[in-house]
């Protein structure tokens, strides 16, 4: 499908401490590509390396970027995105999502997971769509929530 081929999405990875993040990020890349949306992944070196090692021939991985370089590009108006998905399982994740909501024109989706997903979701006080599930090792609760919003996310553009 290429009906949205001019659109792009930033996937902002958080600390890779919680196992579901890498799996869900790859799934999100797949979902976006299926809808003709070009994903770009930004994250810490460790978060990116987890994905790169799992996909050495880059069958699935799209463009990868350093998290600070991505923020620089947006704040300096050199680049922006239509959609932005931020993976959150701690306060730093909330802080990064809040920053993206402020500096980017993208529609921001806060993908909240981990043991404290509900508590973190309650801390969101900036404009974004919250997708929250208590998922640590099993990605399915978050996958189901993401599937629910993906069609809506694309149709909103």
């Amino acid at each position, binding site marked *: 499908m290429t009906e949205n081929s001019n659109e792009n999405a930033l996937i902002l990875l*958080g*600390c890779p*401490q919680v196992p579901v993040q890498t799996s869900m990020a790859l799934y999100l890349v797949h979902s976006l590509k299926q809808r003709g949306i070009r994903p770009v992944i930004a*994250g*810490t070196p460790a*978060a990116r390396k987890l994905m790169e090692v799992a996909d050495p021939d880059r069958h699935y991985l799209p463009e990868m970027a350093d*998290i*600070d370089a991505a*923020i*620089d590009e*947006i*704040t*300096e*108006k050199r680049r922006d995105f239509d959609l932005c998905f931020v993976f959150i399982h*701690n*306060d*730093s*994740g*909330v*802080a*990064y999502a*809040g*920053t993206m*909501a*402020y*500096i980017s024109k993208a529609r921001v989706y806060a993908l909240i997971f981990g043991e404290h997903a509900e508590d973190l979701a309650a801390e969101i*006080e*900036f404009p974004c769509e919250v997708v929250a599930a208590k998922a640590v090792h099993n990605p399915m609760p978050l996958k189901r929530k993401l599937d629910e919003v993906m069609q809506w996310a694309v149709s909103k553009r």
Partner: protein
Amino acid sequence: MGCLEALKPEILLSQSSFREAREYIRKNVREYHEVEPGYRIFDVHIIGVPPLYIGVEGEHLIFPYTKPCHGTFVVKVPGGEEIGMAFASRTYRCPGSLSPPKGLVLSRIQR
């Protein structure tokens, strides 16, 4: 080694939330400036939800530094001659870093 690390920052508050870091600066630093999220100082960005503050204490700058895995730290580093440049010209940079976007310093607050 990054620019900030090379300055051997003093850690005033560690592994806190960005809100706790904001309150720490607001309550403990006499002069502080509000900046927008994404403001670049040295080689790091100020991350969080407004209001976000950078403090000035003598020859030092005090600001929140958010690490994805370890939360937000409030750090104190020597600002030297660049303190004046930071808020007078609305730009702040360390060697090799990019300039922040103009106009990101919103206001100066002094108690």
